[in-house]
């Protein structure tokens, strides 16, 4: 077969030919037996936990759930411990807070059938087209002055666009993320015809040179870099495995990898500026987990019904997430818009409002001024 279309045609035929809808003897009885003794959930609880396939209205003012209360209690405890530490001289006061700058995102442009890159202020104003389609995976540099894309770098105002050599030893170099000092990029390398090259590579952010290989997927899948730790020693990434996507961490110095959690259909993760948390999307929720795999915590987006969410990315000051989300309401269309919210799952703010357009690939940078 020489054309992609052939694969699609034969795939349809194959599914049609092999789909077996036979109901086994006793299967229905087994289902009814398994359900007969069970109570249905109360409607309010089922609506919260069930998948959103209705067109009912959303609620931005959801009361705090148990995890939210637990988070508040933990924060209060941390506050007390910190206050005691500061007054006794055990802790040093934190440095002056950074100022949150623009958000960068990709938007699907139907006319080009591909993605263009935009920036917008955190209050939703000042939207600016940085790079027209086709381009992918924008990531703001640590100083907020540049944007890395697949595979190259451009100034945040769209000037001085430099595309780097797109291949290295048979691997196509694609989406990437900045090191904390801004000097290196962790890049996804892949080749669907030779998956032995699939893994994460490191390259200079100035010119894409000095490429070295960091990870090897080994599962015929992809390693997709998510975010560097603030100390620059580790990178969180998503690894395709036979059982699905998993969150992994690699040591930049020696390439040693370890599995952190299973993240079915999750994104590649964002590292909090204080280095304490990695945040990923799992289904309709965000999950925060310590880099050592402990402290697994779910943060619910404060919307009752969601078709899907992507991201998240920590704000530079670590207080908020930026992410994309698709709501089921007809008045909002079926496309994702960009939102921010506090990391405790409150104070949802809608940044873009484009019912006919789809936004994704979100990242949040510092104010470079």
């Amino acid at each position, binding site marked *: 077969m020489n054309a992609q279309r052939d694969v699609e045609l034969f795939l349809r*035929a194959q599914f049609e030919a092999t789909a077996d*809808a036979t109901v086994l003897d006793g*299967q229905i009885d087994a289902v009814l037996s398994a359900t007969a003794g069970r109570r249905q959930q109360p409607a309010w609880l089922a609506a919260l936990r069930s*998948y959103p*396939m209705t067109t009912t209205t959303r609620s931005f003012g959801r009361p705090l759930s148990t995890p939210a209360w637990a988070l508040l209690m933990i924060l209060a405890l941390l506050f007390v411990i910190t206050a005691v530490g500061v007054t006794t001289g055990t802790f040093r006061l934190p440095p002056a807070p950074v100022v949150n700058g623009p958000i960068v995102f990709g938007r699907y442009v139907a006319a080009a059938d591909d993605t263009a890159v935009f920036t917008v202020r955190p209050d939703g104003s000042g939207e600016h087209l940085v790079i027209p389609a086709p381009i992918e995976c924008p990531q703001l540099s640590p100083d907020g002055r540049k944007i890395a894309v697949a595979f190259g770098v451009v100034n945040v105002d769209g000037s001085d666009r430099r595309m780097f050599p797109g291949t290295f030893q048979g691997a196509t170099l694609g989406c990437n993320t900045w090191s904390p000092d801004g000097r290196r990029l962790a890049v996804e390398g892949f080749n669907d015809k030779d998956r032995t090259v699939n893994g994460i590579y490191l390259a200079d952010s100035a010119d894409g040179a000095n490429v070295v290989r960091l990870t090897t997927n080994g599962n015929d899948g992809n390693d997709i870099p998510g975010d560097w730790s603030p100390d620059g020693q580790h990178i969180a990434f998503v690894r395709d495995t036979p059982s699905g996507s998993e969150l992994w961490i690699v040591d930049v110095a020696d390439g040693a990898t370890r599995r952190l959690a299973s993240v079915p*259909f999750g994104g590649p993760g964002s590292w909090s500026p204080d280095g304490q948390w990695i945040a990923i999307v799992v289904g309709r929720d965000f999950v925060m987990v310590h880099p050592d795999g402990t402290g697994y915590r779910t943060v619910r987006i404060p919307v009752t019904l969601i078709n899907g969410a992507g991201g998240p990315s920590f704000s530079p000051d670590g207080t908020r997430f930026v992410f994309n989300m*698709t709501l089921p309401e007809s008045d909002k269309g079926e496309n994702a818009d960009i939102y921010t919210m506090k990391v405790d799952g409150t104070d949802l703010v809608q940044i873009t409002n484009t019912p006919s357009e789809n936004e994704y690939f979100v990242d949040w940078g510092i104010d470079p001024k």
Partner: protein
Amino acid sequence: MDPELVILARGGDHDAFARLVAGSIGRLNAIARLILRDYTMAEDAVQDAFVDAWRSLPGLRDPERFQAWMTRLLIRSCQDSRRRARRRTIEMPLPSIDEPKVADHQATFAVIDQIERGLNGLTVDQRTVLVLTYYLDLPIAEGASVLGIPTGTMKSRVHRALLALRATVDADDRPIPTPAERTI
């Protein structure tokens, strides 16, 4: 699917739920078997999905969306089923499902056989997006809705799954090198 049955089942009518089960279990069996490639795992996934559906039905406010909602529960159940199987030390086999029923032409049979082996080489996640798109014929946006992901993500996952399938098929097409070729 009769919305009245969904409304009755949502109100706790188990007989109505039984009729919903009877009316949809065949379709769900087919989906689960295509995704999981294993009859036993598929049967368990379908049952788990129905148990979840019975408990969660009061949360389904639009009865017209029962089929899509049920499909989504099944997809999640298939993913859970696969993860559970991976956690067990004894891995479930992945036998090829039914022999193709349309293979009366030798060339077509060969290609279909390639596709079949290619599908076995994909991950559950990859097969899921392909089943949604090419078996259920869901538009990209609807498939994304079932999986709870943005349409752009769905589009790229379908693309990647097709590339993976294509790569497997191409690998099968590649002639086996002779010993002389191997030494070059």
